[in-house]
């Protein structure tokens, strides 16, 4: 990993420390929107992004969902990709070497998915020997097949089980990505922290659906999918704020981020780093643009360290 560069030309220090990871700037990619970065290397310099958070990696290859996987919705989209990925072996033998060849200095956080808690641990154990991997993000929005298919992240017990098991498997930073489809996000964040998470990231997608009037059927083959994009930003911001009051570990905020000022809002709400997801589809340079806009905002306001924004929102008592 390249060393964090000194203060930028504008005099703004964009660096943040995320659970021991020194990031050159707070802008990350949101898992699932960016592959492992290779396809976007034509458009952005992967070594200048705060961190590339990869598509979820599972123990074995997962085929994803059949039929229609996406539909655009007002200010957003629904997806039910189904976590298609070639599995951790292919990731290690093909994806990581390709990434190392193209962007050896990139900061890579691997998103991990599984059907059982042991599955998550197995993926981590396999990745431990890969030097390109700086940290892990546990996607606990997957259905727990050992517990009737309810999302891991909807249960404190399941979160505790996964995080404890994975904590034993690595000393690298463990980020737990929380699902918003719960009653109390603070409670879930506390469970993750208590079990040993070094950080939490939120939000994953909100459950939603859309109906195709040409066919009188759901647009998505799986009927219900995950909503992302600008429409979810107010919900995401609210949850980041709630989580930041519930735990002391750092937070990665995401949900509808499209601009540097969105990044500022999430940091003010309590996020140490902020991920850009759906915005990458219409603007493949969104991550670079958001970082540049963030820098310009700070420069304009006389803010010399972006980390001063973290949790700095003022609330009337």
């Amino acid at each position, binding site marked *: 990993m390249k060393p964090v560069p000194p203060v930028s030309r504008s005099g703004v220090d964009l660096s943040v420390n995320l659970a021991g990871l020194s990031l050159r700037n707070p802008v990350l990619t949101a898992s699932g929107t960016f592959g492992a970065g290779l396809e976007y290397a*034509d458009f952005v310099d992967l070594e200048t992004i705060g961190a590339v958070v990869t598509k979820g990696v599972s123990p074995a290859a997962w085929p994803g969902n059949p039929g229609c996987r996406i539909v655009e919705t007002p200010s957003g989209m629904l997806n039910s990709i189904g976590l298609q990925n070639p599995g951790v072996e292919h990731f290690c033998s093909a994806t990581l070497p390709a990434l190392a060849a*193209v962007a050896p200095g990139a900061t890579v956080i691997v998103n991990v998915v599984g059907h059982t808690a042991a599955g998550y641990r197995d993926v981590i154990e396999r990745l431990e020997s890969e030097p390109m991997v700086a940290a892990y993000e546990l996607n606990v929005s997957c259905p727990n097949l050992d517990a009737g298919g309810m999302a891991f992240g909807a249960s404190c017990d399941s979160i505790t089980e996964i995080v404890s098991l994975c904590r034993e498997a690595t000393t690298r930073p463990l980020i737990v990505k929380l699902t918003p489809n719960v009653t109390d996000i603070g409670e879930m964040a506390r469970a993750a922290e208590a079990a040993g998470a070094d950080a939490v990231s939120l939000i994953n997608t909100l459950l939603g659906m859309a109906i195709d009037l040409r066919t009188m059927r759901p647009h998505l*083959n799986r009927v219900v999918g995950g909503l992302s994009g600008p429409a979810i930003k107010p919900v995401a911001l609210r949850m980041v704020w709630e989580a930041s009051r519930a735990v002391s570990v750092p937070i990665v905020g995401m949900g509808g981020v499209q601009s540097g000022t969105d990044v500022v809002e999430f940091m003010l709400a309590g996020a140490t780093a902020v991920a850009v997801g759906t915005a990458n589809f219409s*603007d493949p340079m969104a991550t670079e643009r958001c970082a540049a806009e963030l820098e310009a905002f700070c420069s304009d306001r006389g803010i010399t360290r972006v980390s001063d924004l973290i949790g700095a929102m003022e609330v009337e008592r």
Partner: protein
Amino acid sequence: MCTSNPETRPAVEAVTVVQNRQLSDSVRSLVLQAPRTASLVRGGQFVQLDIEPGCLTLRRPLSIYSVSGDTVEILYHQVGEGTRRLAAKKAGDTSMTVIGPLGTPWPVPDTARTALLVGGGIGAAPLGMLATELTERGVETTVLVAAQNAGRLVGESHFAACGADVSCATDDGSRGYAGLVTEPLIELLGTRTFDVAYVCGPEIMQEKVSARLIGHGVRTFVSLERRMACGIGACLSCVLPTVDGQKRVCVEGPVFDAEEVLWDEARASRV
């Protein structure tokens, strides 16, 4: 990928609307000034057009019909929200960008001497540049253009101007053969041989037509479409089941060898 040539790899290009007009009842033509895309795009490729930046979440994938100087032409129907807004764009509009050129172009085997192109409806558009390329290479080119009615036929005069032997079929008989394209196709296959065939149109038509062609031993390529988000191979929205596993319509496609497509399984994700 980053290891690709920066001069030819897909890139974001700002475009200017040169012309946006109605060609017939249902077909519209959009001409964009896009010098980089115009210089690089090959027949069968497409662009991701940001029709309403900041308003529509996703770009729209649109095939390039033809190139002239530093402009590209796109043919489209008004189908949904994106194309409805596109129809309102005026000449001189500079608000849009394209990502492109994207996708795998129509392959032209070196040994091909004779080619058959079959286009259904707006699906004839992706065959536009191919017809030019084939005829310029001296390939004897036959084109079968089909649609519901005469007002929906696409590209007939362009294909003829290239020097191809063109015939039409309309469901209602308002032009050319009255009926589905399979009838004139069977007749053609009975009287001529083709080294290679290219089919584009409604997916059910591509499935039936390519089955006929393959049955006659003709190497056949099709061009499919799926809903896309990124358009550059990262998000896995646009996958198509093939004999070699799931392929991305935006990268490994949109052009596929007809024999590798698992048509039955693909039906569930047809747009």
